[in-house]
């Protein structure tokens, strides 16, 4: 068997980074940077998730096949979110608002 054994030292470094990430994300959430709040939160979460996948889950040392599987899952998730948002992002803004002339015709 030729599996890669990750040393506990690396685990501890990763753990510390994850803790740091958690701290930063909470701290950043209280700073008002407009719509970048959500961007910062998601970037930090993605960095944390990547660290977990690469080291705790040994993806960095796994065969290429496993890495492909991971890429696939992210890719398909992206397809689902992105293509659905192409619909929502490009709709006329008012499609969910009642035009005034019609609201009285609808049951309350």
């Amino acid at each position: 068997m030729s599996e890669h054994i990750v040393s506990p030292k690396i685990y501890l470094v990763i753990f510390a980074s994850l803790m740091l990430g958690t701290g930063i994300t909470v701290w950043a959430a209280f700073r008002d940077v407009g719509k970048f709040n959500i961007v910062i939160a998601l970037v930090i979460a993605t960095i944390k998730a990547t660290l977990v996948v690469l080291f705790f889950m040994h993806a960095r040392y796994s065969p290429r096949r496993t890495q492909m599987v991971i890429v696939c899952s992210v890719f398909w998730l992206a397809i689902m979110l992105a293509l659905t948002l192409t619909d929502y992002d490009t709709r006329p803004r008012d499609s969910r608002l009642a035009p005034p002339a019609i609201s009285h015709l609808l049951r309350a």
Partner: protein
Amino acid sequence: MQSQLPFSPDQASNFAPHVDDLMLFITLICLFFAVAVTAAIIIFFFKYHRKSPNEVGVPIHGDSRLEAAWMIVPLILAMGMFGWGAVVYVDYRHAPPDALDIYVIGKQWMWKAQQPNGLREINELHVPAGRDVRLILASEDVIHDFFVPAFRVKMDVVPGHYNTMWFRPTKPGRYHFFCSQYCGTNHAIMGGWVTVMEPADYAAWLSGSSGAEANPVVAGEKLFAEKACVTCHVGNGTGRAPSLNGVFGAKVLLADGSTVVADEAYIRESILQPNAKIVAGYQPLMPTFQGQLTEEQILSLTAYIKSLQSQPVPATGSGIAPTTEKR
């Protein structure tokens, strides 16, 4: 304008010829491929039929040039279909700014429309020929779909959304419209008629002088069908509303246990304020027709309902109080 395709509904809007042309274009391309492939299969089937039990075919493994050809040629044709279809669709989704706005509301299981001057219709839609018409669609409950085959247009009517569709009727006449998004029990009878009128007739109709029939009973019967009363007030008493056969002059048992004599006033009230007196055993489902009927039309309807006295009274479902009351 091209002649009508076989197996196609009337062409009665600006979109109809475009859609039929598209249909013809794609059909011809597809027919070419279908015939070519089928012919090849049939020819090979007979020509290369196994001659002896141990015969083996010629080992041909493939040809990249051929593969490239039959990827690229269909792709080009497909892009043609996409492009042409997209042009028609983009046009359809962008109504001209000066279009006539008519509101259409779907509910389980009827269509209500409101003309620009406030005139309301049920399961009917009157539009002028030659004028761009935009329908603003809303739903009170589930998803419906307003579909006029002769116009080649449809659009879903989605609760919480306000979709629009447009067309320019080109040929006066009466055309079916359907609900084409499944919406529950009576989805199949949730339809009606679009009447395309000459602009002058439409204007006259809007102002209410559409020349009512001389005989009020005949006019009432027509209204009874047009306003879709007949879909619920079924003669044999199996509908969602009481049968009206023989109801005039009889005592009607109400949901609160009281009875009332069905006279002209009761019928008028039931049309205009349907929920005021509910017949025992029925749900308060009927929409109000306030503002949708002229007084003359109410009178015609009353005359028609009176005339139903000669019809046989169903055993159940009329709401007529038991005969013990009469004795």
